């Protein structure tokens, strides 16, 4: 037998080996991606400081002479600060309740961070407008009826008014809670339970243990969550635009968008100068977060040896659960109900009656001659394409970096594709306008510009998913392929891609949902010639056509939920075989 096998060796060693196509492909893809992200930003900075080829700060002078500057900055800071503080409190308490106490409900802890993904920010903001507008707002109608039932007199416009400082801050909080929750819950899950148990058996009660042991252990994550929330709060556009404007709460991002899209000719230089302030805040918080993360890595408590014993809340267990469920229902089902009820009325009266019930708002969406239909089709196609391309690029760059850790190109590419996350969407869109609207590209108002915008904006999410999947895969399986005589190309397509399937599907859903429901970039980059959902919804809501907006909001929310649910479902069935072993492998590597 040995003889027979040796005969075949000769055939193997003479067979032709192909060249490293993968590495070359990865170099090209990395270079194009770097250029696509960096060149527009560089151009923006260049035009801001050297508008005519000479150093000139007139844009800053113009900005400083604007009468609204001071109030706008003050308003923005107040809203961001209160949004971050309130979401930190609510998000952390929820994380603690679901991770560390017997109020935990399994499905709920998975659902909470996913909810905002499926409801685009604009849809939820409009939902709140429909719920809490003085007068016909759904909540106000309900309270008046409830009041009448009990013989109480409720003010004619109802108790709720979303167009107030309180309304704006509460909606900031609602938008930020899931992000805080995600970070804090993950940290609580990773805390070695024995440190809590050691405190408990030392005679310290659960609350004191929380304050003295658990919270200090996750402090880096808490800081990280706050900085993440701050970065998101600075770039939030839907709430300040739709609600803040009416409430008289000025906002930095809204100003940038208005200067770029409403004024003609667009003052892109003043917008860039304003953008620099945004970059300063968001970029600063990201840098801080990186530092905190690096510190956290040193302090991280490795692995989890046993499942944590949960804290018994006693009589408070059910009240706590009810608060959790009520919060989730109020922040997802209520706005969705607001959208649905208004979408089913021929005119917005606050209540569905047989007289005003209609399906024509939905019918309009599916009428191919209408802009609404085009916008939906465009958003879906762009969402699918962006997600596919972004995930593929992220995988290639991620794997390239793993195989060639010393390559400067790989390192730059890895840093650059995460850069858009450290900038506000508005800034990236502004840079793309500066780079691609003028000659030689003249892409203004084209779907290509939107595609580039979505691609650049959501690369960071794609990259994070791809890197997470890669790190779960671990190096052994790719090394086993290489020493089996397979080149990088075969290894990438036969081993890496199939094994990363489930992780890729998750990343794909994420990017699809974000791109299809995108608002900020769409507002700046789309045009009536290239309508997308975010653009059309905002356009209609400013002109008061709430029935159509609500219907579009319902449809895009349902679509996101269905696509997301279906694809994650498929991914899970596909992943049954592959996820478990890679986890096992990870455990093996940890224990080794």
């Amino acid at each position, binding site marked *: 037998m*040995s003889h027979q096998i040796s005969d075949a060796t000769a*055939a193997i060693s003479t*067979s032709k080996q192909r060249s490293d196509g993968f590495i070359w492909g990865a170099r090209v893809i990395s270079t194009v991606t770097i250029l696509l992200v960096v060149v527009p930003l560089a151009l923006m900075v260049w035009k801001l400081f050297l508008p005519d080829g000479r150093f000139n700060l007139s844009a800053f002078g113009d900005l400083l002479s604007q009468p609204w500057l001071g109030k706008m900055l003050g308003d923005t800071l107040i809203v961001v600060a209160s949004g971050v503080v309130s979401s930190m409190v609510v998000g952390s308490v929820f994380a603690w309740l679901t991770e560390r106490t017997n109020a935990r409900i399994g499905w709920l802890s998975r659902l909470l961070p996913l909810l905002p993904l499926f409801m685009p920010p604009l849809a939820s903001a409009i939902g709140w407008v429909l719920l809490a507008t003085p007068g016909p707002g759904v909540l106000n109608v309900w309270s008046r009826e409830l009041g009448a039932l009990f013989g109480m007199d409720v003010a004619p416009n109802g108790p709720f008014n979303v167009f107030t400082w309180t309304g704006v801050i509460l909606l900031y909080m609602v938008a930020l809670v899931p992000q805080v929750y995600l970070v804090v819950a993950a940290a609580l899950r990773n805390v070695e339970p024995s440190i809590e148990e050691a405190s408990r058996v030392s005679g310290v009660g659960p609350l004191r243990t929380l304050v003295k042991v658990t919270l200090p252990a996750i402090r880096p994550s808490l800081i990280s969550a706050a900085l993440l929330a701050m970065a998101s709060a600075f770039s939030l556009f839907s709430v300040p635009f739709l609600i803040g404007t009416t409430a008289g709460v000025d906002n930095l991002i809204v100003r940038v968008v208005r200067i770029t899209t409403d004024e003609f000719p667009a003052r892109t230089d003043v917008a860039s100068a304003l953008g620099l302030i945004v970059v300063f805040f968001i970029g600063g918080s990201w840098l801080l977060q990186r530092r905190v993360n690096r510190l956290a890595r040193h302090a991280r408590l490795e692995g989890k040896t046993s499942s944590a014993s949960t804290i018994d809340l006693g009589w408070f267990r059910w009240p706590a659960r009810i608060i959790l469920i009520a919060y989730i229902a109020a922040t997802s089902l209520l706005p969705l109900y607001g959208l649905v009820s208004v979408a089913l009325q021929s005119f917005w009266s606050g209540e569905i009656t047989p007289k005003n019930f209609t399906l024509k708002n939905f019918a309009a969406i599916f009428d191919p001659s209408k802009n609404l239909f085009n916008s939906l089709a465009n958003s879906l196609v762009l969402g699918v394409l962006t997600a596919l391309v972004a995930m593929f690029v992220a995988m290639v760059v991620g794997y390239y970096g793993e195989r060639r850790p010393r390559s400067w190109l790989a390192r730059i590419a890895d840093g650059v594709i995460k850069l858009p996350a450290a900038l506000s969407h508005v800034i990236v869109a502004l840079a793309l306008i500066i780079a691609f609207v003028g000659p030689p590209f003249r892409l203004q108002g084209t779907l290509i510009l939107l595609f580039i915008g979505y691609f650049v904006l959501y690369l960071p999410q794609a990259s994070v998913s791809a890197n997470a999947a890669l790190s779960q895969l671990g190096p052994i399986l790719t090394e086993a392929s290489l*020493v089996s005589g*397979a*080149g990088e190309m075969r290894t990438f397509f036969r081993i890496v891609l199939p094994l990363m399937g489930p992780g890729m599907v998750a990343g794909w859903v994420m990017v699809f949902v974000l791109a299809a429901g995108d608002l900020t970039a769409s507002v700046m980059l789309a045009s009536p010639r290239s309508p997308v959902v975010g653009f059309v919804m905002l356009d209609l809501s400013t002109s008061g056509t709430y029935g159509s907006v609500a219907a579009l909001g319902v449809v895009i929310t349902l679509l996101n939920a269905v696509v997301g649910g279906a694809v994650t479902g498929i991914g899970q069935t596909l992943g049954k075989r592959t996820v478990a072993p890679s986890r096992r492998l990870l455990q*093996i590597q940890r224990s080794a």
Partner: protein
Amino acid sequence: MTPRIELRDLTKKFLRQSGEVTNAVNHIDLDIEAGEFLILLGPSGCGKSTLLRLISGLETPDSGVVRINGRVLFDKGTSTSVPPERRPVSMVFQSYGLWPHLNVFENIAYPLRARRVPSAEIRQRVERVVAVAGIEGLERQFPTQLSGGQQQRVALARAVVSANDVVLFDEPLSNVDAKVRDQLRIEILRLQSQLGFTAVYVTHDQDEAMMLGDRIAVLDRGEIAQLGTPRELYETPESPYVARFVGTVDETRATVVGRDPAGHALIVETAGGSRISVVSERALQGEVVVMTRPERWSIHHAPVTHGNVLEGVVSAAHYLAGSRTECIVDTVDGPVRVWAPHGIAATEGESVWLTVEPTDVLVFGADE
């Protein structure tokens, strides 16, 4: 032609996060003969896995030359660096490295597919190695459905299916339980003698090293502390490091006080005042370290007057699996471990006299 692995002046440094530079592999020269079973043995962090990965091409050396069968695979001087997929080596990983999305057949066939072997031949050759590895009937299963031992057999089959001259083993048995491990050791030896490949095998387990290796290279902080047959390493270790790592030793400080009349042996006096004669080829004087192995002591229940005698009291006796009992004997030179057959061993609290042959005592300079 003599197929063999030649490593010349091989060096690999790693930069730690603290900024400290570690010499994982430090100027190693090593020749591995064709068909040899060579063990790289050492504690974790001694560079044995790194050395293996330099041979496989998964890591690139900082300097040096790697040749297999006379073919240069890496040479810093001429900037030659052949990627792993083009080296005539296979590898078996500690964590198996089986691809969970491929079944057993496809896992084993993968190296052949990568080399564009015709599919009829692939089927034949996979069937053959499946039989050799003793995993018939598992071809359609997926790796996660198999036990650890079966998975490692699949990994072995995958490593030998391409009939490479060299198979590298990176601690392949440390993830399987003890019973399966014994069995797989025998299988690996059988495979190697049957197929005739050159094996380079990394382990930290000295028993495994002794059983499998034609020769063993003991590594210490990136350097080869000693290279030799299992017997040479055990009986004539060249340094205290090797003596401590291969087998079990008790040690004590001593001073050379003279030579015996015949001139064959050194006389040393231990810190506790015992005089011991030691046969050594080394020209030692002054401070030395004396080491003894537990199974080389004889235990006596009555006083002995001549030879190397150490008197003491048994402070503990542990009945070990197999044929022997471990006695801890408190002597003037501290506790000494003695492994004696069950029948002969003493009981706790008993006074005993220990003797050892001068040829069975190891001695090294105190600064070694």
